């Protein structure tokens, strides 16, 4: 049973100055599972992912991946991870295909022509035509940039993939294409995925399990079915998207 856990987060704390963002997060993600974290804007969802990736140093707590403590030891950590950034974070000095094939070119030293073929294949997978490959990120729409970011995250078939708001800013049809892609990478490639989203339709579709982050803690977690039956007022308010309820929005 223990061996089924891919990522185990225990009592994770992170503050910026006086501002407490994560205040004791406990969360386990099973191997091959698709976990979705929901929560309001600014509750620290991106910070949580960045702590797991070692991009931010937590103040306190433990993060284990495959049973190994990773805090402070990020060497080789990223070789098994892929990440789609909330803002895309494409390298604007590189063309689209060089972005997508970055890992192949720089880490695996794949010849450029082979790397390009592979990049074009993955670009097609995320719904982008081959002629996009030679454009630069600044020439793409926001949604296209997101898909390029997605292609860059999955090209190496990583064991763990993080998606930070993969469908935000996409039209509903493209959102569903991305949903299918996430499901495909999780189920098809056996990757463990952690997705952050506000898009409840997307969450329902891709999640094996949903966890809700509120005031620095995971206040609820369960399957989609359990979510539909829950009487947790925070979760109910978030699903309904209502301004009335226990979650107070500071205006």
């Amino acid at each position: 049973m223990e061996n089924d856990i891919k990522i185990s987060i225990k009592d994770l704390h992170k503050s910026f100055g006086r501002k407490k963002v994560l205040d004791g997060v406990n969360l386990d993600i099973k191997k091959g599972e698709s976990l979705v974290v929901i929560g309001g804007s600014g509750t620290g969802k991106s910070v949580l992912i960045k702590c797991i990736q070692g991009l931010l140093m937590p103040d306190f707590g433990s993060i284990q991946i495959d049973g190994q403590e990773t805090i402070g030891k990020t060497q080789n950590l990223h070789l098994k991870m892929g990440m789609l950034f909330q803002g895309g974070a494409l390298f604007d000095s590189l063309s689209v295909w060089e972005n997508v094939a970055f890992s192949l070119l720089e880490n695996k030293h794949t010849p450029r022509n082979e790397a390009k073929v592979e990049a074009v294949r993955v670009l097609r997978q995320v719904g982008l035509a081959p002629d996009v490959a030679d454009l630069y990120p600044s020439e793409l729409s926001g949604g296209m940039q997101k898909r390029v970011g997605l292609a860059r995250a999955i090209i190496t078939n990583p064991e763990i993939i993080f998606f930070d708001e993969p469908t935000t800013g996409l039209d509903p049809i493209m959102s569903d294409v991305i949903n299918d892609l996430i499901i495909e990478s999780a189920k098809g490639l056996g990757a463990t995925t952690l997705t952050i989203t506000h898009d409840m339709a997307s969450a329902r579709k891709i999640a094996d399990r949903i966890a809700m982050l509120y005031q620095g803690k995971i206040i609820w977690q369960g399957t989609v079915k359990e979510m539909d039956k829950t009487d947790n007022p925070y979760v109910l308010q978030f699903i309904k998207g209502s301004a009335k309820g226990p979650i107070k929005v500071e205006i």
Partner: protein
Amino acid sequence: MLLKQIEQFLRTLGRPLVKFLISLGQLTLFIIKSIYHAVMPPFYIKNFFGQVLDIGFYSLPVVGLTTVFAGMVIALQTYSGFSSIGAEKAVANVVLISVTRELAPVLSALMVAGRIGAAMAAEIGTMKVTEQIDALITLSTNPFKYLFAPRLWAGLLVLPVLVLFGDVIGIFGGYVVGVYKLGFNPANYINATIENLEAVGIISGLTKAAVFGFIIALMGCYNGYKSKGGAQGVGEATTNAVVSASILILIFNYIITEIFFAR
């Protein structure tokens, strides 16, 4: 009452002082990390040559223009300051010394600081605030090796070449004014220049250039890397990179001169 005032005084003095010490510590750490990663493989050769082109080739016109006018004006000034007896030798000598020791390295470095230091800080700052640097890390690539090391190496190695070019152009500027404006004999002027050519002047100038190049790249990378808060933060980083590089260039110019020439 007095105690309170002293406390108040220390407080107002203390906060900036602590801030200054913290940023000094951060900078030191950054320098150590940069140097470590600059000498340890993997090396990103392609990025290095890209920077050589950016810093070196595209700076040639700026450096050429700066040094040619510097050489010209020195020739004119020297002539007006000397009696006409022996002016030929004096002008050639003063142009040579001031261009190779001071004007070419310092003026070129200041111009390059404005051009390259700003561009580097803006590029790296933008990469920082748009999470491209985070993205690099998640792609198992160390930003110190991929971004900073090529820039530091390029700064260190390219500036001396630029300055050597500036030396030649600056001396040529002096020659043009000497011969065409002041009516010196060309052969005599050239002979006087060659006679007075001294290794220490040129070497000290090139040493300065290497140090200045490193400073420019370092300030560009450092200020870019620590920028935060969107476009405004990047703008601040750009200004800081140019200002701090320029001041450091002038300070180190004195220090290196002292090392080479003080007796």
